[in-house]
């Protein structure tokens, strides 16, 4: 039987959504049709972001740019990729994109680079979503004992995800680039727009700050760099090397029917993602002690509550006002927006930026374990004005603090209700019982999810003209939802006299807790109404 081949340049493997339905495209077709494609149709957030980063690397290399925001704007204006540079690029490197090449299989190491005694591992190890060993999930029942067949297209996507998402398990394995932290991408209205919006100024130099030698950056398939198992960290050559870092060394194994049934799996090239500005698609939060840590998903806390980090005003970074560092690719987006505004003054036909979304991808590991609790993809509207307008960012911060203060008042009220309910005579209730009663009230569930909906509206509608009015409306919503959340929780406690008493004691606490927020709200209302009247 002839040796199998699956070349990513020609074979369809990238799942996309088009106006005619869902399909899979090859590399060649993807870049030729990116303007017709709505977006990726990949249900796994980990695979989504991994494929996107891989494609961004190719885009930068094929274009050898964009070298400036102005050049970016010219690319944007075209509305589609010129297929020629992409065709040249994939033709040049086609031999490195065959999944089953015996010498240099795509994203893998050849069999000769593994010990003859290396044991086959289940394919499920490639994807954190699949059940394997310590990471059971709800979505798959693949067991380590059963044989799993996956298609070459699936294997390609899983390989790309595995390079980015693998836990350090102690011993020889280290965490891969993205596994512990949140990574971001911006989405446009087509795949062309999405790819372009996530590009950065690129002149072949390293932009990760590690080195500044020109023309040194390249992804692994261009350099023939070996896929070595390194415990010590290797700094990337530059952006595209970083985006395509192979955190694991894999070799896919076929059965007699040439189906992919297993793999060899070893550590890959190590990199410490936690250092400051290690990745242009990470954001960093300032801790109380002033140190910076990359943002990560937190259980019970949606992304939007920390969105002020995403919109951190660049010149405030490092100052006492800073809450962190926004992803540096947003800095490029800001520059692009300025370049676009400049162009618009001279050319009426300037195609504006569409309504953008920013998406966050990642996993929530189980505490202290190399296992996934859950994986997440969240999105927020991304008004470009927020990247450029300091007052809007300040308004955003006020809005978020208002919500957090209201949540604290709500929690205090809930605690008071719980304590009153459990108090017998002069005896104070056991604090564990109070905590238990408080959790049964489910105040967070009643408050945060409906508020998130309102926040999306607030963010979408916020602009330089209306920020005071929007802020007032936001405050109004927060107060209304706080009171409703308390009411809804109180209603389920019970309707006998003692329960009613407890509810009213909690209500008093809520009223006291919201007093200052109510005053802020009333002041804002008076200001807005005065403004409207004048």
């Amino acid at each position, binding site marked *: 039987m002839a040796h199998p081949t699956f070349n990513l340049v020609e074979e369809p493997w990238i799942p996309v959504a088009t106006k005619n339905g869902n399909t899979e495209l090859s590399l060649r077709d993807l870049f030729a049709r990116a303007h017709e494609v709505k977006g990726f149709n990949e249900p796994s957030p980990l695979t989504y972001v991994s494929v996107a980063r891989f494609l961004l690397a190719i885009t930068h290399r094929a274009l050898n740019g964009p070298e400036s925001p102005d050049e970016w704007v010219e690319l944007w204006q075209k509305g589609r990729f010129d297929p020629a540079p992409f065709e040249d690029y994939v033709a040049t490197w086609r031999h490195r994109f065959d999944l089953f090449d015996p010498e240099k299989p795509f994203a893998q190491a050849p069999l000769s680079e593994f010990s003859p005694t290396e044991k086959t591992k289940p394919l499920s190890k490639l994807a954190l979503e699949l059940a394997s060993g310590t990471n059971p999930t709800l979505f798959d029942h693949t067991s380590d004992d059963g044989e799993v067949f996956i298609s070459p297209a699936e294997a390609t996507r899983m390989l790309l995800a595995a390079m980015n998402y693998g836990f350090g398990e102690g011993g020889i394995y280290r965490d891969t680039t993205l596994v512990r932290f949140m990574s971001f991408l911006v989405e446009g209205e087509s795949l062309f727009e999405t790819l372009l919006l996530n590009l950065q100024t690129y002149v072949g130099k390293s932009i990760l700050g590690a080195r500044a030698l020109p023309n040194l950056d390249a992804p692994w398939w261009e350099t023939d760099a070996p896929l070595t198992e390194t415990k010590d960290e290797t700094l990337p050559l530059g952006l595209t090397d970083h985006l395509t870092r192979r955190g694991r060394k894999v070799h896919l194994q076929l059965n007699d029917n040439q189906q992919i049934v297993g793999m060899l799996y070893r550590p890959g090239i190590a990199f410490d993602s936690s250092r400051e500005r290690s990745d242009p698609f990470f954001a960093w939060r300032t801790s109380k002690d002033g140190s910076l840590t990359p943002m990560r998903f937190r259980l019970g806390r949606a992304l939007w509550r920390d969105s002020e980090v995403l919109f951190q005003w660049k010149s405030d970074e490092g100052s006492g006002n800073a809450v962190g560092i926004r992803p540096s690719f947003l800095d490029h987006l800001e520059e692009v927006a300025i370049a676009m505004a400049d162009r618009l003054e001279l050319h009426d036909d300037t195609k504006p930026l569409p309504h953008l979304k920013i998406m966050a991808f990642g996993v929530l590991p189980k505490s202290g374990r190399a296992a996934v609790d859950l994986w997440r993809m969240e999105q927020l509207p991304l008004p470009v004005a927020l990247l450029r307008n300091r007052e809007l960012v300040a308004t955003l911060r006020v809005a978020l603090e208002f919500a957090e203060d209201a949540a604290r008042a709500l929690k205090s009220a809930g605690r008071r209700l719980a304590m009153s309910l459990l108090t017998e005579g002069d005896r104070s209730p056991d604090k564990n019982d109070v905590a238990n009663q408080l959790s049964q009230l489910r105040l967070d569930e009643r408050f945060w999810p409906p508020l998130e909906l309102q926040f999306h509206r607030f963010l979408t509608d916020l602009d330089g003209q209306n920020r005071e009015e929007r802020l007032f409306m936001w405050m109004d919503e927060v107060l209304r939802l706080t*009171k409703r959340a308390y009411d809804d929780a109180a*209603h389920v406690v019970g*309707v*006998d*006299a*003692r329960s*009613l*008493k407890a*509810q*009213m*004691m909690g*209500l*008093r606490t*809520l*009223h006291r807790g919201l007093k200052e927020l109510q005053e802020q709200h009333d002041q804002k209302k008076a200001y807005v109404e005065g403004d409207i009247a004048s």
Partner: protein
Amino acid sequence: MTDTQTRTHPLIGHLTRLVAEDDRAALAALRRGLGRPPGEAPELYPHVAKYFPQETSSRNYENAMFTVAALFGMFPNHRAEAGTPFKVLRLLDLESDSTERRVLSVLNADTETLPTHLRHLFALIRSHGPDRHLDYGDLLFHINQWDHPDRWVQRRWARDWWAWSVPIEPDAEPATGPSDSATEEVPD
């Protein structure tokens, strides 16, 4: 706001006219309803029955009217929007364990035992605040709604006792007022 601007239930209008006319015999007759199940004191019928709702027959509503009439005989101080009995109690500053127990008893009462508990409560109010007023129109509505599955009346009264400083949100409760069609203006 003057009383001529207040539209109120015709029963309440009638009861306040008894006070205005100083009809002590009538008030004494109303008091005969205290301590007896609603509708079992014939002395109340001349004052109450003519205001029964015409379109529908509601035993619950009729009983509420008897209860309110009897309590009025005991404490004949109505003013619209004066508040619930618990609000009046709160204003009398009678916070104590025994008052709290009385409050809890009222809240735990069902429609059958409510008249008895209210009688004790009104006795307390009368002895400490003979010049106070409460809204008998609301009281009639609240007693009629006492069995509402939401227990909104009990919540309202509980708020008046324990969380009186917290303003009530607009539309937080059903609109108070007579539940039948007839209303009349109460003269000054």
